[in-house]
């Protein structure tokens, strides 16, 4: 499975990066259903904004897309791969090869340098290492290029311990890490909620530019509806999720 070019079942558009059908999820047996998604389709190159209240299951959905957890029922297909049919090791490989992930905050491993943090995905995926080396002489050069694109140009900044960086700087390092080796899918879980509104917009624009350059599809989650106009499509979890718990979370 490793390294295989994602394939598409007949009758489906090869442009579908994500296809979800009749998916349900609950964290544990006996706990309320968090997600009940009849259908969700996202196409290649889209920049999707998923909006939902706190506790509505946004992060849970992203974990499903990243193949960290499995649905209770239903199909989840990412880049043509049926994640619900893969074993856990295969899903971990799949994530390493094809998905970049940005968290809300504290994205960086405190004991690694900026560049080491950015290069982390290359340590776990040969594919991303090879792709990172495609347009650069070395992994470090590619990491520095990405950091430069994301406005992290100051050389002294790169030598500082990552914990001493500002939140906005940390988020940009995290974005560089998610983007290195051009993963087909970039998932961001409220990456801007700890930034002020000016920084928020510029960060998102940088992310867009880099996604376009790498050809990555962006799935961006937030409960901040003011960001919505920047994206080319918005999905409201309250509208696509039928689970009772989600409705309650929406109030």
């Amino acid at each position, binding site marked *: 499975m490793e390294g295989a070019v994602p394939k598409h079942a007949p009758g489906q558009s090869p442009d579908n990066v994500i296809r979800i059908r009749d998916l349900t999820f609950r964290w544990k047996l006996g706990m309320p259903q968090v997600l009940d998604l009849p259908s969700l389709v996202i196409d290649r190159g889209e920049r999707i904004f998923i909006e939902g209240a706190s506790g509505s299951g946004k992060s849970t959905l992203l*974990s499903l897309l*990243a193949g960290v957890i499995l649905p209770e029922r239903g199909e989840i297909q990412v880049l043509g791969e049926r994640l619900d049919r893969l074993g*856990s090791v295969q899903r*971990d490989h799949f994530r*390493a090869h094809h998905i970049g992930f940005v*968290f809300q905050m504290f994205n960086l491993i405190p004991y690694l340098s900026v560049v080491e943090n950015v290069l*982390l*995905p290359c340590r*776990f995926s040969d594919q991303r290492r090879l792709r990172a080396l495609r347009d650069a002489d070395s992994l470090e050069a590619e990491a520095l290029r990405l950091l430069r694109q994301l406005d992290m140009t100051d050389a002294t900044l790169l030598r500082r311990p990552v914990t001493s960086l500002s939140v906005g700087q940390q988020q940009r390092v995290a974005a560089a890490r998610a983007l290195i080796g051009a993963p087909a899918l970039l998932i961001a879980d409220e990456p801007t909620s700890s930034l002020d509104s000016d920084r928020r917009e510029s960060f998102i624009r940088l992310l867009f530019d880099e996604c376009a350059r790498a050809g990555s599809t962006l799935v961006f989650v937030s409960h901040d509806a003011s960001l919505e106009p920047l994206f080319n499509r918005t999905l409201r979890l309250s509208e696509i999720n039928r689970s009772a718990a989600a409705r309650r979370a929406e109030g």
Partner: protein
Amino acid sequence: MQLLILAWKSLLNRRATALLTLLSISFSVLLLVGVERLRTEARESFANTISGTDLILGARSGTVQLLLYSVFHIGDATNNISWKSYQDIAAMPRVDWIIPIALGDSHRGFRVIGTDQSYFTHYRHGRNQSLTFARGGPFQDLYDVVVGAEVAKSLGYHLGDAVVVAHGASDVSFARHADKPFRVVGILERSGTPLDRALYVSLQAIEAIHVDWRNGGPPPPGQSIPAGQAREMDLTPRAITAALIGLKARIATFQVQRRINEYPEEPLTAILPGVALSQLWGLVGVAENALLLVSVCVVIVGLIGMLTALLSSLNERRREMAILRSVGARPAHVFALIMGEAFALTTTGALTGVALLYAVLFSTRQLIEYRFGIHLAQTGLSAHELMLLGLVLLAGLLVGILPSYRAYRLSLADGLSIRV
């Protein structure tokens, strides 16, 4: 390898706690291997006290008791061997050499041993080493004395110094042979055995200083015989305490032993030094094993310290785990990461412990040799010590399984959500 580097960097990040854990592991390893080293060296030097002697002859008594007073100069004999019996045994055809030992006198807390020149020619210790002189040589004159290295050092004796021997084990004024002082003619090289803590005179000298004594008491006033006059008297020993025997052929040992045990004219015992030594060591062994047990417990405490440190670090590291998972780390990686940390801690702990041990050995070697007569060899680790270290590493890995498994479970349950 990547993971080990990651584990190492993560460990460096928490260097304060890691250092404490490391310290407790290395000190416990130092103690464990140190005790083990001391144990083997003590046993070795104990067994090295006497070598080359095939049989020890004494009046009928316990094996260990005879060994103690004849070789270790501890305790007293209950009975003597008559001079006639000694000569009979010495004349046995299979006997190659025999060293007489007459005990009963002392000098300022050190035993005085009456013997003859054969002590200097035939006594062997360690790996077949004979006695060597740091200064001077064996006694020649009646009132000559040879002193052991420790005696010379602690009493500050030099060649030519006068020594007054006292009757019995305690050096009290009324029991001193003050009228017949000895002259130091030889100082022995240090051997790390009880030899260092004794003085040596001839059997005739023992006879001479007691020539005017009656019933174990000093001569009545006016009846004492001056040193010069004693020289002229018959100084044939009347009795000795023990004798060390070397045989022409080892194979005859049991035969000669039986002959001595069945000697008709006097109840005598002959013991094999090796057998007696191992019996004696069996008695000491209990304390020695207890010591080892305590140091094993210290290692366990050290490892529990590591367990606590690892477990309590897990909560603050859940974020780190989620990040690693997001970039493609498998739960197995998370498991290996914590395992790697436990491995790094125990390995470096064990290595520092061994390094510390050699530092301690190097700096205290002389002190231990002087004080306890134990020669700590500056050798590499023995197979047994390596096995102990291997067990410590194994135990460290076993201890690591618990927090690793917990981290594994947590990373499965948390998924990509960061929990703190």
